[in-house]
């Protein structure tokens, strides 16, 4: 039988195995480190077509989150308001302000304002706002003090590990339903006791919370 492989093939295979092994080990070590340390754009303001100030609208004027994000209690997605919602006030208030030029363009052309996405979950993760709200997860638990933000940015990394912090132990975070939209809510000192009571009262199925198909369906 003729020799198909030259003698240096042995060395090649040896190095390839060694290299492949080292590469795999490096991946296993580096990926979690990367995932845990990467900032994920937390705290980085996202530029928008209009410099909308949440702090002005929510805190100074006292407008409820739901005035604009109307679908948050009943749908998976918390809608970004239509230009019509802005115009409900701004057809009369601060008319002619250069800051609102993009709004008027959108209104007159009957074309939506193109806001830039701030929270963008990968599409293999299913997320539902209404399910969280009806089970006592407050707006500020995930979004931070949006009512104090002049711009808008992500307050949490929204990684799976971060989601699991609550999905593994919801009693650490749930609030009474009446406090969900209270942006200034502070958990009581006996949060764990209250949390356990609420988890029971809201029939939160803690087994389901850690099942893969709850979020990856």
């Amino acid at each position, binding site marked *: 039988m003729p020799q198909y492989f030259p003698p240096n093939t042995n060395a090649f295979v040896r190095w390839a195995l060694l290299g492949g092994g080292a590469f795999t080990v490096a991946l296993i070590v580096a990926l979690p480190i990367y995932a845990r340390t990467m900032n994920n754009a937390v705290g980085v303001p996202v530029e928008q077509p209009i410099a909308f100030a949440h702090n002005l609208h929510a805190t100074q*004027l*006292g*407008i*409820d989150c*739901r*005035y604009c994000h*109307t679908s948050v209690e009943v*749908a*998976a*997605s918390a*809608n*970004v308001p*239509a230009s*019509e*919602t802005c*115009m*409900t*006030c701004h*057809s*009369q*208030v*601060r008319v002619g302000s250069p800051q609102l030029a993009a709004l008027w363009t959108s209104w007159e052309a009957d*074309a*939506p304002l*193109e806001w830039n996405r701030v929270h963008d979950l*990968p*599409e*293999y993760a299913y997320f539902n706002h209404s399910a969280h709200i009806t089970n006592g997860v407050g707006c500020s638990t995930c979004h931070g003090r949006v009512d104090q933000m002049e711009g808008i940015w992500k307050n949490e990394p929204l990684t799976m590990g971060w989601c699991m912090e609550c999905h593994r132990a919801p009693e650490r975070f749930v609030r009474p339903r009446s406090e969900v939209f209270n942006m200034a809510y502070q958990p009581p000192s006996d949060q764990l006791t209250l949390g356990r009571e609420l988890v029971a009262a809201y029939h939160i199925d803690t087994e389901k919370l850690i099942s893969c198909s709850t979020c990856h369906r």
Partner: protein
Amino acid sequence: MNRALRLVVLALAGVLLLAGCGRNMAEQPRVGPSQATPFFADGSGNRTLLEGTVSRERGAIDPVFFTGQSEGALVTELPVELTFELLLRGQERYDIYCAMCHGYTGEGDGMVVRRGFPRPASFHDQRLLDASVGYYFNAMTNGFGRMYSYAGRIPAEDRWAIAGYVKALQLSQNATIDDVPADVRRALELAGTEGSIR
């Protein structure tokens, strides 16, 4: 095979492996809420309702429930059962959607009015005291004066709750101590002296 060719083949195989590193699982070829899409001519993934679309809220078509009118006249009775829960729901929704202009007591002195929006009439003016629940439902549904329609933002069920609450608000603002049951009156007076009544 010479050495150079072998290297080229290896490099190509490496490139093929890298092709698996895209984020295409995270960005799937489907449209999510409010996303742009080249699929439709106007580039918007959100579609407007076709003309003549019938709401399937409440399962069936009920003209009184959806228009607040019966045979062309505004209804004077709620088409839903009046319960304490309905009024509480109405209060919550009123405080979210209406109080910004109409004020928490209905005086028409909300925060947006203080920032320049023309002042709406007080709900405690005689004309509006005489107005029916259907009148308020109609104003929310179709808009009124400078007020835009809220039909796209507040479901019909909630608009009725708000209409009911506005009537309750009117009663509350024009009530006297004689309207309070005797057993509650004492507690109310005590609370009043402490300045803690809302």
